[in-house]
């Protein structure tokens, strides 16, 4: 568990320190596609921007999106799971069919359509729809749209088990309301698997963000993202192949760290339960 945690902490700390080291958007056309040097430890990209600073900016964006979307998805999924598991009946059936459908669909092709939507046609004011940061918000929304299902299933399962446990019945017989029972008695029991699922879902969100950005549908310039950096690097791949290696390696390291962390947490929780 220490390994992935240290790795994640290092990546996050470096990404957060980025703004103090220099401007990632500073263009130097005289110094394009340069190799590693003292001024640019990882070289420069096709516009002469410092590769290391760009990587760190991409890290800030990827991690922010990953954490925000995973947290929002966990919150929404928890609410759905609690309601579905506690109420049961047709509410439960409809919600769970929806979960099954979302899980089974070919998500990437559908997300490409959603990512390409023209927001102004949905009635979003043009000034807002073409703002710089809108790509961030859009990706978080898309990731939540498909990510809530994991938490919903987990929490529903745990709620079904907890609903008929003696301490919940006792609370009910003492006159506790439904919201009180859900939040105070059932939620604490599902926290452990929820933390595991959220850690794994950060990894999924980062992968999703990177592939959408790579396809040109995610984070838009001037913001840097590991995915869009790779798509730029593709065009200069014969002149500077290393530019195509760094961002991918960063995605890989971050995602595998999140996955290993989730796995380690799960083992720890299981051991405690035994």
């Amino acid at each position: 568990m220490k390994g992935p945690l240290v790795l994640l902490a290092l990546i996050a700390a470096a990404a957060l320190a980025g703004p103090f080291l220099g401007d990632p958007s500073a263009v130097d056309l005289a110094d394009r596609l340069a190799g590693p040097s003292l001024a640019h430890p990882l070289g420069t990209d096709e516009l002469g921007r410092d590769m290391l600073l760009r990587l760190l900016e991409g890290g800030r964006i990827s991690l922010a999106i990953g954490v925000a979307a995973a947290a929002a998805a966990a919150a929404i999924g928890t609410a759905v799971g609690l309601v579905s598991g506690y109420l049961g009946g047709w509410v439960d059936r409809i919600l769970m069919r929806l979960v099954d459908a979302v899980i089974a669909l070919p998500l990437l092709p559908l997300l490409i359509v959603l990512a390409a939507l023209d927001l102004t046609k949905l009635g979003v004011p043009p000034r807002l729809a073409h703002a710089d940061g809108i790509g961030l918000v859009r990706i978080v929304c898309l990731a939540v749209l498909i990510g809530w299902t994991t938490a919903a299933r987990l929490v529903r399962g745990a709620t079904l088990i907890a609903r008929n446990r003696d301490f919940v019945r006792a609370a009910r017989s003492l006159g506790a309301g439904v919201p009180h029972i859900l939040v105070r008695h059932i939620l604490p029991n599902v926290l452990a698997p929820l933390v595991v699922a959220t850690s794994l879902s950060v990894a999924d969100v980062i992968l999703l963000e990177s592939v959408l950005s790579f396809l040109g549908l995610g984070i838009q310039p001037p913001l840097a993202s590991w995915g869009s950096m790779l798509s730029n690097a593709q065009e200069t791949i014969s002149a500077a192949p290393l530019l195509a290696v760094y961002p991918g390696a960063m995605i890989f390291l971050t995602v595998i760290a999140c996955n290993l962390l989730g796995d380690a947490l799960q083992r720890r929780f299981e051991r405690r339960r035994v």
Partner: protein
Amino acid sequence: MTRYAAIRLVEIAAVLALMSLAIYALIGLMPGDPIDLMRSADPRMTAADAARLKALYGLDRPLLLRYAGWATAALGGDLGYSRLFAEPVAAALLPRLVNSLVLMGSSFVLAFALALGLGVAAARRPGSRLDRAVNLFAFAGVSLPTFWLALILILVFAAGLGWLPAGGVGAGFAGRLVHLVLPVATLTLASVGGYTRYVRAAMREALAQDHIRTARAKGASEARVVWRHALGSALVPVATVLALSFGGLVSGALVTETMFAYPGMGKLIFDAVMGNDYNLALAGLLLATAVTLFGNFAADLAYAWLDPRVSYS
């Protein structure tokens, strides 16, 4: 069993109908519209011409009416005309569907065979060095961005060593095979990690069961115990997870095909969406959904066939 299959087929049809309406509505929200595209192609066109064209194509009618028109034509086999390929949608779609099925089918078989070998070997010696290596490999597999893997493979085997073509499809059987190597390798590596984890977990559980001890006690060989008794019960949970993995396979194929310029359904959907080819995007997305749903259905049937306790009557 027949009843179950019939119910499932009706469900699949219902989901497809719902999806077609949803996608139809979404496609209308994409940037640009067909009349604008014509206007930009022909500067002499006036606003009155545009309005007349809109009425001609029925674009001024409400969404549901337009959808009903599309649906009746589609059910009659007319999916419209593709702007991008300048041929009927069905003619553009079918050969690419076959290409995609070849890519996905061979990757699935390869990945599943690899996962069986690795997962079973790891589960037989939990905690061993081999187990830990397999576990790390599986985690690396699920954490690799597919497009980056493709990029690196192109960089090494096509641009660097020059052993394999970087993209496209070749002519003749040998040519096609050579062009399939890198895409299939990419998609296989992208899915083998997840499958391996399922197989390993299911095998560990299966090997701990009482009937395994019984089989060993009555003198069955170790190979028979592992590959027949344990794998037999482990395949049941594996089949349920595989049933849910076809959507991921279709998604992975989209990225792989786009990276290797492989003319499959995924690349077609991406090109159609980016190129404002509404008819083609709509039909392609529906076809991808249908392929996924039928894949799930097939896995469910396999599940019933593998596990004698499951009956869908």
